[in-house]
C-alpha cells in the first residue's frame, strides 16, 4: 500500500470529491432533507437510490483509491465508483436544470464538472487497466513498490 501522501497528491480533486460525496449523502439521510430539485424531478425509487448511491460511491471510491491489495483490483473498484459518481452527478445536473433552469447555472456547471471529471477519470482507469493486462506479454515488470 503506497503511502497516503503519494496517493493523494496526484489526485487531490478526485479525493476531495470522493470524500465529499458520502458526507453529503449522510447529511441528506440524517437530516432528512432533500434539495427541491431532487424532490421534484426524481421518481421516489430513484431518489432513494440516488441518496444512498452518494454514500456508497464515495466509500467505494475511497476504498478503491486506497486498496491495500492488488493494484488492478483497487483500480477496478475505483472505476466502478467513478462511473456511478458521474451518473449520480449528471442526474443531479439534469434535475437541477429542469427544476431551476437559469438560476441553477453555477450549481449545474460545477456538478457537471464533477460528472465530466469522473467519466474522464474512468476512461483513464480503463486505459491503465488495459496497459496493466498487456504488461506481462511485453515482458515488462510493473514497479512493485510504488504502485501496489
Amino acid at each position, binding site marked *: 500500500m503506497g503511502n497516503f501522501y503519494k496517493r493523494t497528491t496526484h489526485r487531490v480533486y478526485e479525493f476531495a470529491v470522493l470524500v465529499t460525496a458520502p458526507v453529503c449523502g449522510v447529511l441528506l439521510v440524517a437530516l432528512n432533507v432533500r434539495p*427541491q*430539485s431532487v424532490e*421534484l*424531478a*426524481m*421518481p421516489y425509487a*430513484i431518489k432513494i*437510490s*440516488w441518496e444512498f*448511491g452518494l454514500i456508497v*460511491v464515495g466509500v467505494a471510491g475511497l476504498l478503491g483509491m486506497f486498496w491495500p491489495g*492488488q*493494484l*488492478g*483490483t483497487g483500480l*477496478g*473498484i475505483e*472505476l*466502478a*465508483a467513478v*462511473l*456511478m*459518481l*458521474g*451518473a*449520480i452527478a*449528471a*442526474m443531479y445536473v*439534469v*434535475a437541477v436544470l*429542469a*427544476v*431551476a*433552469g437559469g438560476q441553477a447555472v453555477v450549481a449545474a456547471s460545477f456538478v457537471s464538472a464533477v460528472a465530466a471529471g469522473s467519466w474522464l477519470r474512468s476512461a483513464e482507469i480503463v486505459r491503465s*487497466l488495459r496497459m*496493466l*493486462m498487456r*504488461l*506481462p506479454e511485453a*515482458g*515488462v*515488470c*510493473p514497479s*512493485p513498490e510504488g504502485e*501496489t
Partner: protein
Amino acid sequence: MTAQASGSPYWVQLLISALGLFGGASGLGVLATVAMQRRKLKADTAGALTDAALALVQPLRSRVTELETEALSVREQLTASQRELRELRTTVWDLTRTLQRWREAIFAPGATVRRIQALVMEEDRGPHRQRGHVQ
C-alpha cells in the same frame, strides 16, 4: 418557484432514470468484471512480476552457463598451448645446442670423419634424452 411546473416533465424523469440505470449497471458490471478477472489482474501485477523477471533472467542465465563452459574450455586450450610452447622451446634449444656442438666438432682443428661419426653416434643415445620427451 416555478419548480412544480417544470419539475414534472416526463422526459426529465426518463433522462434521470436512464442516467441512474446507466450508472448503476455500469458500476455493477465493472465490479462483476473485476471480481471475475481478479485472478488475471493478480497474475498481472504480482505474479507477472516474477514471471516476467524469470522470463528475462532465464535466457541470461543459460547464456552465462554457456559462456562459463566456453571460458573453461578456452582456458584449458590455453594451458595446453602454453605447455606445448614450452616443450617446443626446449626442443629448439636442445637442437640448437646439438647443432652448435656438431659445428664445433666439424670445424675443430683435427677433425676427422670417424671422430665426428663417433660424436654423433654418442649424442644420439645420450644427452638429448635428459629433458623429458621430445616431439
